[in-house]
């Protein structure tokens, strides 16, 4: 349903006709329709880069939906491989899909991951009247009876939200992870609704998806999956300090075509760093529940490679890929 709904939201030729002019030098492709995280990443980067004068002309934002980002990926590989002016929004969903071979055989090494400017910390959330007071309570309940706790999340089975509770259970020494119940619904807010309504016992998602519900007191956060507690949410404990060594953040960043020169690659890295350090971006992160997470250039590329390798292992274990 999510995909069908979001597909309606495409931009149109009229828009391109009106918006495309020679005034645009650079382009950010959001591989989804307006409204999601990728669209947000592109629009923020485009606005901020122009405001801080890191680019001379406004950056054009193009929405290229389809295949969970695969259509845009294919287009960049095939048509823009040496185009130094194009960047594409990406997140953990992009690398998860690449790891699971969900882009029709295309692989992560066909592009270069140039930088992340922030991250949405992973969270495990329960309704306010839940019997679970901390992560251990929940883990013990699942160990005793795996069917007693169902998770709702905004991604499909095998997606990033599904991986989070599995990683926690593995960290707790529970290896029968295919027994953990998970339903994928249409986005984080929907997952919260199902959990508050009592249809599922817990929600797995990103911090940005739950901020309003935490403030209104409808839900309690059992754990945030970051290394340190998140600024502004200091009363939420990390999984790590509760004895479960799991870090899972949904980074917001971009990739660039494979064929551009190292200088051009580094220039984009510097631009992204400037965005990450701007006051505008810090304000946008605070409003949207994002935590600082800046990695650019070669650092970022090697970090992404590691994440993909881990995802492949876990995906094989739950049978999403052979």
């Amino acid at each position, binding site marked *: 349903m999510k995909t069908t709904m979001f597909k309606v939201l495409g931009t149109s030729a009229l828009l391109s006709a009106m918006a495309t002019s020679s005034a645009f030098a650079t382009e950010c492709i959001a591989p989804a329709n307006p409204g999601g995280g990728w669209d947000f990443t592109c629009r923020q980067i485009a606005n901020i880069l122009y405001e801080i004068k890191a680019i001379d002309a406004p950056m054009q934002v193009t929405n290229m939906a389809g295949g969970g980002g695969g259509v845009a990926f294919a287009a960049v590989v095939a048509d823009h491989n040496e185009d130094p002016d194009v960047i594409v929004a990406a997140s953990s969903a992009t690398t998860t899909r690449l790891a699971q071979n969900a882009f029709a055989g295309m692989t992560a090494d066909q592009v270069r991951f140039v930088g992340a400017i922030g991250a949405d910390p992973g969270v495990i959330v329960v309704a306010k009247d839940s019997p679970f007071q901390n992560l251990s309570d929940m883990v013990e309940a699942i160990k005793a009876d795996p069917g007693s706790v169902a998770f709702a999340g905004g991604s499909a089975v095998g997606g990033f939200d599904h991986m989070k509770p599995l990683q926690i259970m593995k960290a707790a020494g529970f290896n029968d992870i295919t027994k953990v119940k998970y339903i994928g619904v249409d986005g984080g807010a929907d997952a919260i609704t199902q959990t508050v309504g009592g249809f599922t016992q817990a929600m797995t998602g990103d911090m940005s998806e739950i901020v*309003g519900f935490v403030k209104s007191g409808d839900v309690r956060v059992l754990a945030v999956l970051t290394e340190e507690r998140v600024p502004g949410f200091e009363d939420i404990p990390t999984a790590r300090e509760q004895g479960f060594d799991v870090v899972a953040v949904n980074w917001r960043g971009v990739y660039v075509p494979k064929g551009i020169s190292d200088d051009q690659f580094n220039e984009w890295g510097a631009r992204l760093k400037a965005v990450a350090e701007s006051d505008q971006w810090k304000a946008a992160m605070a409003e949207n529940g994002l935590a600082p997470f800046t990695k650019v250039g070669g650092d970022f590329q090697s970090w992404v490679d590691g994440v993909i390798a881990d995802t492949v292992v876990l995906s094989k274990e739950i049978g999403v890929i052979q």
Partner: protein
Amino acid sequence: MMDLYANLSLGFSIAASPYTLMLAFVGCFVGTIIGALPGLGPSNGVALLIPISFSMGFDAISALVLLTSVYYGAMYGGRISSILLNIPGDEPAMMTTLDGYPMAKQGRAGEALVVSGVASFVGAFLATIGLMLMAPWLARVAFQFGPAEYFALYMLAFCTLGGVGSNNQAKSAIAACIGLGIAMIGLDQTTNMQRFTFGNIHLFDGIDFLVAIVGLFAVSEVFHFIESHGKNSAIGVKLGKVMIPWKMLNDTKGAMLRGSGIGFIAGILPGAGASLGSFLAYMGEKSIASDKETFGKGNPRGVAAPEAGNNAAAGGALIPMLTLGVPGSGTTAVLLALLLTLNITPGPLLFTERPEVVWSLIAALLIANVMLLIMNVPMVKVFVKILSVPSYVLLPGVTMIAFVGIYSLTSSSFELKMMVAFGVLGYVCRKIDIPTVPIILGILLGNAMEDNLRRAMILSDGDWSYLLSSPISIGLWLFAVLGFLAPIFLRKFLKKPPLPTLDED
């Protein structure tokens, strides 16, 4: 109550400056045009204007006023091409073709447009009032709907399908099955496996129902027109003088109120949306009508109910969007994107933390709605003139808009071929009298229905009785069974089976 007045006056004091009124006017006008063009629905209209409103440097309130005017405008506009050309401007306007187009063929296009315009106003106005009075409370309704309840809701829609657009229930069922089958194409959300995609990345996300709708309606209409040399089409029909049909408005006021109620409730439920609202409003109206057999042949109540329903659903869908951050329809998803870009995060605290945003939005909706009514009724004359445009101009125009619209949405020639294929399918269906509305409904709702069933099965470890475990789902199942069986028995016992009616085509 004092709070309400205080809040409303706060809203109007922000939203009712001459400048924002002008924006609302522009938005309404542009929205109506966008809504009327096949393929370009309200969500595309809004998506299209987001970047423009940013490049014009509008502040948050102005941008909201402009875009909500476009949203409501497009909901009004969608009915125009439904009635005049048998081509729905957007998916919720699909039901309006059933009785609107026959009315146009009979030379009553003007009346159909006025009735549907007023019905749109009633639906949208009541929904805005509902939003104003009860939004935080109504948002709780969403917490009552789990996978089992949603599945029952979709079952209700499919069970009441029989008799849509055709008097043959078996053919409606076949059409719904075709739609459900098409919905199976793509990535399966529960297991993340591909089905029927043949490794083609364009099929990973499934078939876009806009491609299907434009193909099945617009392209097949063009084929049909060419074959029949324009006979038996509304184009060139002698038009009576356009007057406000007071009597007809009076006769349809019950239909409008009932349609608004049903549509509003459908809109509140995330995942149901305007299409289901207009569909259920139409079926509800037909099921209580004493003159059922005139539905589908130009009954004004068949125009009033779904139009009130889809506009009320559009208003209702704002409730989960604002209070939970769950978009209930494509368009509200775009509006959600707009709010996020303006650094306004919808959620349970929006009403208390950002009252100026919420109440100026409500004021903007009320303003847009009144403006649209005033604009639309006199403009009926202009729209009706479309029918006197010679067909050698109109038809290529429609074809061009269909192609440009779909290409701009999907940027792929693959989807264009698919649209033509749907056009052929629509043409064949028409030849053998299979209604196309259930096909669209199957594509629209099929995935959600399947996903919810499978989620229910995961949660209950495969126990089917889970589907009947709450009063809401039991109630919905009862209505579904009644909706399926009642027409069969009524037809058998209450009167002689009607002779199969032959349309002239």
